[in-house]
Every structure is written in C-alpha cells, then in structure tokens.
C-alpha cells in the first residue's frame, strides 16, 4: 500500500494496466477472479490446515473465459525421436555415419562429439500449412492444419524418472500434484459418476515411478488420477464380487443408509456424516454409469474401424482413444493415455534399433490418434477438448553406441504438439538447431526454447485458469504448477 510519488499506475514493477492484463485479461475475468479469491480459493487453500471443506470435485468456474473444457494427453512414454517424426532436419541425412562436434546430454552422460544417425524416414509436406511430417505418421499428417507443433521444448532432466515427473507435475522430485490434479482442483468435474482425472496405461505396464505419475502429492487424494482399464471392470473395486448380487447390494445400501440416518439424527451438525451417506449413493451410481462409459457396443462399426479396432496392431490404443472421446463427452476433465509402458522397447525408448522401435509404436498409434482428432472434430468436441501429444523428452540426433541406430535421451530440445480447444492449427513454433540437438533461442540472447512449464501454463490458460494464480497453500507457500516465477503460456499457439 504505497503512498507514493511515483506514477499511480506502478505496481510491482508493472503498470497497473499490465497487471490487469496479466491478472484477468478483461474486466469480467478480473471480477470473476476476485470472486474466486474470496470464496473458492480461500477455502481450498486453507483446507490443508484442517478447515472443513465440501464437495471438492464440484464443477467450478475458471478464472478466464475457457477455450477448452477437457484435456486428452497422449503420453508417448520413453521419448519419441523428434528428428524422425515431426522436426524435419534435411541437413541430418547426408551426415549419416559421420562423427560431428555436437553437445549432447543423455542417460549416458555428456558428450561433445558423436556419430550422426540420419533420420530413418522420409518426410513429406502435408496440409494447407505445408507441414513436413515423416512417413511414421501418415494418418496424423492429414491433421496438421489443426495442430500446433512446438519444436523447441526443453526439460530439466534427460533421465526417465525425473523427466516423467516433470512432464506430469512440473517438478523433478515426487510429492507435487500432477497436471491432471491441478486441473481437477481448479475446475472440478462435470460428471459425478466418473472420476475427474483418468489415466489409461499401456498393456505392457505402467511407466517408471508408477503411481507417482498420477499422484495428487500434497493435495487431497480427491484429485489423484484414477486408473481406468479398457477391459474388464474399468475401475478398481467398481464391480461387486459375484457373490454379492446387485439386488443384495442395494438391500445392503438401504440398510446402511437407515442405520447412518439414525446415527445422524443426534449429530445433525456434522456435515461429514451426511457427505458419507451421500458418497455411498454416488458409488452406487458410479457402479451403474461408469461401465456404460467404457462400453463400446453403441459405437458404430464405422467409428470402430476409424480407430483401428479391427486391426490387432491398433486395436488397443484405438480402443483407449475411443474411450478417451467417450470420457470427455461425459464431462471427464483430464484423460491421460500412455503409449508404451514398462521398460526399454516396450515404450519409445529407442536405445537399440531405432527403426524397429519407432515403426512399432508409431504403427500402433498413428491411426488411432488421427481417428481421435477426426472423431472429436466431427462431433464438435475438438472445440472444447485440448489434445496434447508428446513424451517426457526427445532423442539425440546422434548414436548412443558405436554400432547401431539407437538414440539416447534428449531434454535440450524436442517436439510436442497440441490441437483443439484454444489452439491455433497449422502452426509450428520454436526450433532446434540444424541437427535437432538443442532448442535455439527465438531471439538471440534469450532463453532457448519452451520449458515444460510453458506447456503447462498453456494448458491451464486454455482451460481458463491463470497459471500464475492457480495456487494451493502448502508448506508455507502458495504452490503453483508452474513454480514461483511467473510463466507465460506459449502465446504463439493460442487461437
């Protein structure tokens, strides 16, 4: 509160107008944000210290006018090679086999020179925008006019464990809530019969660090990701055991409600007791409705074919992409799909035979991913659904070993893409150097590339959440997904 002789518009080294812009963007936004400050955020942030709170997953209003309501994050676990997929590097082909001076940092440590592995696929131009895409993705390539590519992504770690945590939670240590947790914390869920944050794993297994990748960390468990299986009962404990028929279970629930209601009579001021009574009824409804969300019987044959359910290669990822559309359609806020699981060549971690690895994973996912974009678009859902594609990092342009085509990890520059709600299609922003080894600065002297935090800020922004204001009070700090320093969304990709 400065009584000051400086211009009145000065605030925190920003002009008042800049501040208004950053805080809200518009009068409505600011008014809304102010309202939220006093009610929703104030209450939520105190909850960690024991103040009671209610309905943590009830749908909430965002800070700003949202462009997207839901997110589908197609996580290409292991780290796809950008120079073999979407980051076209013509200069790299003729260097194949030559040893060049290039700084790299991967799981095998830092190097200053290595043997180039030329890109193993041909690139062609697609769409109105003329985007170069490799032969690995002939189906996705047809959607480039809806996609914004970010070619200069950077992350802090070239090691799977910590890089996975950073892509999912912003921090390289575990203990912080994941992106999906932040989103459901900020916006709640629009369907109480389904979890707000859903994770579908690859059939080969979970990623490294397992549940840490969908944990709510220091936030309540309400915001953690729920594993959803594409076969069998979709959610843990959703199906009653065979020797508890539904009719019996209903009788049990009725009796339970009667006992709990009697118990509540003399304890009417304890809202938790009433909430727990309601939770059993919600569980009953989930049990009834969640299987419907994963039941594909009412999808047309054409749709199933579109996603590749009729082909063994694409059937699994196709099924999960189709489920993702059905979940988003039903108001699930954040859906994350893993392409690749477990270790080594079960995911995109191509240390050995690059061609074999990438042909396999791209072949499993290209048609389903394209189908998801097609399907979302034709149903109008793409306008309100943000689709993200990418891994925890990219790969080096050079060989990891003396022999072979295997590439080591690369967090200094890699590609991710986004499409849908709030995203401008047909654009490519940021670039790596001519070898694709590292992101370069858009303006000389500036920081190279777009850090993972910028991606997270973009996602929150598209959902109408201000990345620099969405906070959760913990450990004496207003914790934010993007950290304490202000982070801008990648404005170049915003529609």
């Amino acid at each position: 509160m400065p009584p000051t002789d400086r211009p009145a518009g000065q605030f925190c080294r920003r002009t008042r107008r800049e501040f208004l812009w950053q805080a809200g963007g518009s009068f409505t936004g600011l008014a809304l944000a102010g309202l939220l400050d006093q009610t929703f955020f104030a209450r939520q942030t105190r909850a960690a210290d024991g103040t009671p709170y209610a309905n943590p997953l009830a749908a909430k209003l965002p800070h700003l006018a949202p462009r997207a309501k839901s997110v589908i994050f197609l996580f290409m676990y292991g780290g796809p090679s950008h120079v073999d997929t979407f980051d076209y590097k013509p200069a790299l082909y003729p260097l194949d086999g030559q040893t060049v001076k290039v700084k790299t940092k991967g799981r095998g440590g830092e190097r200053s020179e290595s043997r180039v592995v030329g890109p193993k696929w041909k690139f062609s131009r697609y769409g109105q925008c003329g985007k170069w895409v490799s032969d690995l993705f002939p189906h996705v390539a047809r959607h480039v006019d809806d996609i914004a590519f970010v070619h200069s992504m950077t992350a802090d770690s070239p090691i799977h464990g910590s890089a996975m945590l950073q892509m999912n939670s912003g921090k390289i240590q575990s203990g912080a809530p994941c992106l999906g947790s932040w989103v459901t914390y900020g916006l709640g869920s629009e369907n109480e019969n389904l979890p707000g944050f859903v994770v579908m794993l690859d059939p080969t297994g979970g990623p490294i660090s397992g549940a840490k990748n969908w944990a709510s960390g220091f936030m309540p468990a309400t915001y953690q990701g729920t594993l959803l299986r594409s076969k069998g009962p979709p959610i843990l404990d959703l199906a009653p055991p065979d020797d508890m028929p539904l009719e019996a279970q209903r009788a049990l629930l009725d009796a339970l409600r009667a006992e709990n209601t009697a118990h509540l009579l003399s304890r009417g001021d304890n809202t938790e007791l009433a909430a727990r009574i309601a939770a059993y009824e919600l569980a009953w409804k989930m049990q009834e409705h969640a299987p419907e969300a994963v039941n594909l019987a009412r999808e047309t044959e054409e749709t199933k074919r579109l996603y590749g359910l009729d082909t063994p290669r694409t059937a699994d990822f196709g099924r999960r992409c189709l489920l993702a559309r059905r979940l988003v359609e039903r108001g699930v806020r954040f859906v994350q799909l893993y392409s690749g699981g477990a270790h080594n060549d079960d995911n995109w971690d191509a240390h050995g035979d690059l061609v074999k690895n990438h042909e396999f994973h791209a072949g499993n996912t290209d048609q389903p991913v394209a189908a998801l974009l097609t399907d979302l678009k034709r149903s109008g859902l793409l306008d309100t659904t943000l689709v993200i594609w990418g891994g925890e990092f990219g790969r080096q342009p050079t060989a990891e070993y003396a022999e072979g085509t295997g590439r080591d990890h690369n967090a200094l520059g890699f590609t991710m893409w986004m499409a849908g709600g709030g995203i401008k299609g047909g654009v490519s922003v940021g670039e790596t150097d001519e070898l694709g080894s590292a992101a370069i600065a858009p303006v000389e002297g500036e920081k190279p590339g777009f850090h993972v935090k910028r991606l997270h800020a973009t996602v929150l922004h598209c959902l109408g959440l201000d990345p620099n204001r969405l906070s959760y009070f913990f450990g004496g700090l207003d914790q934010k997904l993007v950290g304490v320093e202000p982070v801008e969304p990648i404005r170049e990709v915003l529609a």
Partner: protein
Amino acid sequence: MPLVCSPWHRPAVAAWIVLVSGAASSAAVDFQRDVQPLLARRCYACHGPDEQESGLRLDGRAAASATLDSGQRAIVPGDPAASAMLSRVTSNDPDLRMPPEGEPLSATQVEMLRAWIVAGADWPEHWAFRPVSRPDVPMDDAAAHDDGLNPIDAFITVALDRRGLQRPRPAPKAALLRRATYSVTGLPPTEAEMRDFLGDESPGAWERVVDRLLASPHYGEHWARHWLDLVRYADTNSFERDGGKPHAWRYRDYVIRAFNHDKPYDLFLVEQVAGDELPNPSSDALVATGWYRLGLWDDEPADKLQARFDWLDDLVSTAGQTFLGLTINCARCHDHKIDPLPQRDYYALLAFFHNITPMGDRQMNPDFIERALPDEGGSLAEVRDHEEEIARRRNEARANIKAIERRLEEHGPQALDDLTRRDLDTWKQLLAEIDAEDRKRPRGLVVTEYGTEAPDTFILFRGNPHAEPATEHRVTPGFPRILGAAAPTIVPVPEANSSGRRTALARWLASAENPLTARVMVNRVWQHHFGRGIVRSPSNFGLMGDPPTHPELLDWLASEFVAGGWRLKRLHRLILLSAAYRAATTGDETSATRDPLNDAFWRFDPRRLSAEELRDSIHVASGVFNPKMYGPGVFPDIPAEVKAGQSKPGDGWGTSPTAEQCRRSVYIHVKRSLITPILADFDLADPDTPCPVRFTTTQPTQALGMMNGSFLQGQARLFAARARQEALAAATQPGSADADTARIVRRVIEIALVRRATEAEVARGVALVNRLEEADGVSPSRALELYCLMVLNMNEFAYLD
C-alpha cells in the same frame, strides 16, 4: 448501539459494533489476532521482508510509520486521517486502491485497521518468537476443584465465559472411552474395558483408564505414526527405481519405543539430529539419526549439484517445519516474503547439515548410510573391534582363496592336488561363515559426515547452486536471528568423524530457551487429541500461520512440558484429565451459532478414524488382529490392478504370511510409489513431504473399496465366522433360525461398535439377513457376511464422538 451480545452476535460483527461506537476500541482489536494476519496475507508479498514496493515495509512499526520518499506516512499512530494506508485501502480508484489483487478489504477490516491506528498502532513482537511465558492459571484452586476442572480448563473456561459461551457438558462414558482409546492407542477399547469403565463409579475411575492407556504398548505405535508423518518416513527412495532404504524400519521402531518409554522430547530431538555425535552413542542414538535418510533420493540426477542442494533443502524444510514450526524453506531463493527470515538464515541453518554425506552416488553407499550397531549396553568401540576382527579374518580368507585361484589360473586344474583343493573349499566355507556372522549383527540406517572439517557454505543467488559464490556471502552455522539465540559453539567430534555442527543445532533445538520447540510440540500433542491444534497450522507458527486460539494456554502447556522434563506422557495425562477433553460432542445452539468453528472449545469436535485406525479396527473386529510389534516392514496383498500401474508389476513388493498382514498398519512397508489402497483411499499422509495435518476426504471411491474391495470382502467373511462362533457357543440351547440370527447380529454389533445392541437394531439386522437370503444366489451364511460388511461400513464404526 448496544454492546451486549445478541443472539446473532458473531466475533467480526461484534468488533464492528464496538468500533463504530468508538468505545473501548483498543480492547476490541488484537494486533496479533486481527491486524497482523491481515497485513501478512494481503500486504507483505510487496511490502514485507523481501520486497518493499515504493520503499514501504509493513512488517514492523518503525518502518511502517516512517516518512516515505513521497513525504507521506502509511501509518501515523493515533492519527487515522494522516495515515495514507487508510486512504489507499478505501480508495474508489481501482488504480490507487490497495491491495491490487483480489477483493478490496472489507468494511470490517478497514474499520479494524482504523481502530488499531486510533489506539496508537500497538505492534508487539510476533507471539511465536517471544520467549515462552508462564501465565498464571486464571482460576483459583478451590473454584477449579469444586467444578472438577484442571488448569487447562481454567484457561478454556475463562475464555468461554468471556465470550458468553456455555461450558461444555461431559461426554457419555462410552463415547469418552472409545474416543480416548483411539486417541491414545489408535485402537478401539475391548468389550471388557468398556464393561469395566461403565461399571466403575468409584472416584479415580477415569484416571485409572488414562494411566492404563498410556501404559499400553499400542500408545507408542499410534503416536509414532504421527511423528512419522512429520518426518516423511518411507522405506524407499522414490524416483525411477524407488529402491529400498536398508534398515529404515529400525528408525520406525526407535520412534515407537521412544514414545512407549516416554523418552524426554529434548533427548528424542538430540538423538535424531546428532545421536552419532553423543559420547559413546547407543544403538538407539545411532538409529535415530536415520532421520536424515528418510527423504527422497535421486540416484541418477540430471544435475548432481542441484540434486545435492535439493536434498539438503529437504532436510532444512523438514527440520524447520517439524521441530520449529517455521517455513524457513521459503527463504531458499530470497528473503522470506512474510516472516522475518532472511535468506542468510536459511543458509546458516543449511550449514549445520552441509558436511553430511549423501546417500551415495548412483548406488547407495553402505559406508555412508549403514552402520553396525552396538549391543544393548555395548559400545561402538566394541563394534569397531569386532568389525576389525571380521575384516581381518575376511581378508585372510580372501587372500588365501585368491592365491589358490591364481595358481589354478596359471597352471590349470592339474596344478592343484587334492589337499589344496580341499583347502580352497575350506577357505570358501569360512568366508561364507564370516559373512554370515557379519550379517547377523544388526545394522542401522544412519547419518555420517565427511570428517571433522565442514565445507564453506554460501548464500546462493536465487537459490542457484551453480551461482558463483562470493566471499561476502559466506555464512557460518547459525540460528534464525529473529529468535535471538547466541551464536552456536561448535566443537568437532573426532570419535564420530564429524564436525560437531549438528550437536550445536540439537542442543539449541532442545533447549528450554528456544521459543518454538516446546510450543510446537505441545501444540501437536493437543492437535492429535482434539483434532486441531491450539495453533491450527501446526507446522507454521509464522505470520501466515493461524494465531493460537488460546495463547496463554499454549504457553502454560509449553512451560509445564519443559518443567516436567519434556515428558510426553505427563502432558497427555494432563490433557486427558481435563474437562475440555471429556466434553460431549454436542453443545448448545447459541454456541454453535456464535462460534461455528469451535474456536473456544465449547464442545469436543467429532472425527473420522484415520486410515490406519480404520484398517486396524477392521482386523480387530474380524478377530484376526495380530498385536506383534517391531521388525522389518510387512507386505499386505495389493490387488493386481494396482500393481499393474508399476513399470514392473510387483517390483519391490514382497509377500507376507496372512498373520503378518494382520499386524498394525504402522508396520506396513512404505513404498513411496505403491501405497496400500485402503490407506491411500482414507488419506494416508503423502510420504514425500512432511505432513502436519492429514486430510479427511469423503468420496465415492472410498465407498467402492469398502463395499466391493477384496480386503473388506475378506474381512467381512472372517468377521461373520467369528461372530457366529462366539454367539452360538454362548447359546445354552439350540434355537430357531431367527433366534440364532438374532444372537449373531447382536454379537456383531457388540464386537464392532463395543456397545450393547438395541432390540430394534437386532430386529432390523435379522430382517436384513432374511431379505438378503431372498436375493438370488445369497446363501444364509453369505447373508450374514454381507450383514457384517454393512456394519463395518457404518458411520458409527468409522466416526468418533
């Protein structure tokens, strides 16, 4: 306007009434309770210790009332018209109005500031940084005695009376016993204990219960868990491999024993912080230092130096929040934005830990983190002698083996005669025996230092470990300045091969002069009995924390705790014997309206069982509970669907025999990336960061697990078998089916809810069982199991009055 309390009176409204009437305003506004938290939350981010926009600093009276460059003064004590702060917070011009973010201050808040300025802008030092006082008990002994009140109640009653709130009614005896048995031991009372207490109308009945509970070994298990939450205890390191920490469970056992043996809290702290530096450290003192090894550890960091400082930061954060209630971690990159903790204080505290060895490099280094432990009453010197002897024998055996093998390599198999061949076998066997003998000696997870000389510590610009260190930024180990302690005296400890820095820290932490240590701990004890601390933010006693609802009581308890030799059981006893603890959860409506958050303790707040309490109570009800204490962690069965989330399903998870799985939840192996579902569902503390207050969430997925999950289904089955067996064994003659069902139903209620069943309840139970039998495919025995499942799901089972 009237000053009396009307039925719709609320504290804030009352303050407003007093203020606008202009009467006794200084008495109505409390700087600590009303003004300081407002300034901290709404102003300090830009006008506090770290930043001073426009030169204004609002975290001290002198600075806040100084003349600024503009010639104005934000606060002019006694002169609201001249105080620019008031015009800025009330300005209608959005470009001028402060604070710029969020809602403007409310009329009540503005009037409160005005009244405070009118009254002279009194600015006492933050309560938590002042030395602990010894307030007089505000009630004379005779009056207290007549009302059956103890000193705690004197403080609470005086405040209740002052606010015109009614004193609470006592809780029914059954509810009280159940409440206390859980809050002391984490388990339900037995039926015999309930019977005894309900039947004991003699004087001293409650005291006897309290003493019995505090003597129970289950007390240590339950209270250890509270401590383990604070020190982010886990048996693994997280990150990619989430590998095991060797012998971490011994630390868990140490904490259980410390509580059970009523180890003085000052010693408990000293052992954890510097047990290894004590003269001739005991096994306990060494194991206690496992405290340093409990956190996350990245075995493959992308940036080694950064990872090293992140690891040290974890220690500073945990120590600051857990021991001191200070969020000193906020001063890593810049001065604390709210509390008077400069960045220098952070690095001065970090310096105490700077010489500690890491967990290892890629592999955990046993020389750094493990140590053979002395026997009970034995010394480390004996251990060393023993280790040297083992090493000597091992080297001899190895040398002989090597020599023979070299001969074999050089000359081929024909070079060895039978005798030498036998020799080789003998040496190899001997080596195996030596190794076995070595393994038999218990080892602990411990702290070690690099040596007696510690490295220099520098303030890191923006917290960046790669920043160039500057000589003027060198810091020596020191305590937060605001707490006014003398500089530490540091004496290296060559016997421990360590710098002695941690001993200096430990001595200060555990001193009666430390204004925070005792306050923070008594508040935690209070918190776990009453469901909330006197300070609601138990790990944040700073300016952003909640002010104490009963500051004098807090200080009185803290001084009593220290005077009583830092003994926790004495403190528990004092609390448990208070009328406040024995209060009913019901209260009058007026109090509920005037004090909805129960700031004044006009009743006892009900609570849900914790995750562990719930799981353990289910085992108790089903009859399979295994009270075995101590030892390596156990592995309850985890559904395959959950293990499927791992990159190698089942990796790092063992199998334990059924009986072992029925031990208390505190003995479950804590694998950071694989938490037992029922515990995760019911808000177990996240093991990655210190957890001062657990959440209590209520959500449908809990209900799914409690109805459909394999754990509950299995337990309901066991429970039904137990109840049937006990109910029918007690029956003198065979009855009708309905009569048998009624007996079993009655028994189920008695076991699970530890009370007599009402006839109406039994009738409802029998009706349910009969109705279930009519459902398809439900046999009579299955119907009883489902009835048991229903009872385990009852709110009465999961909640305490």
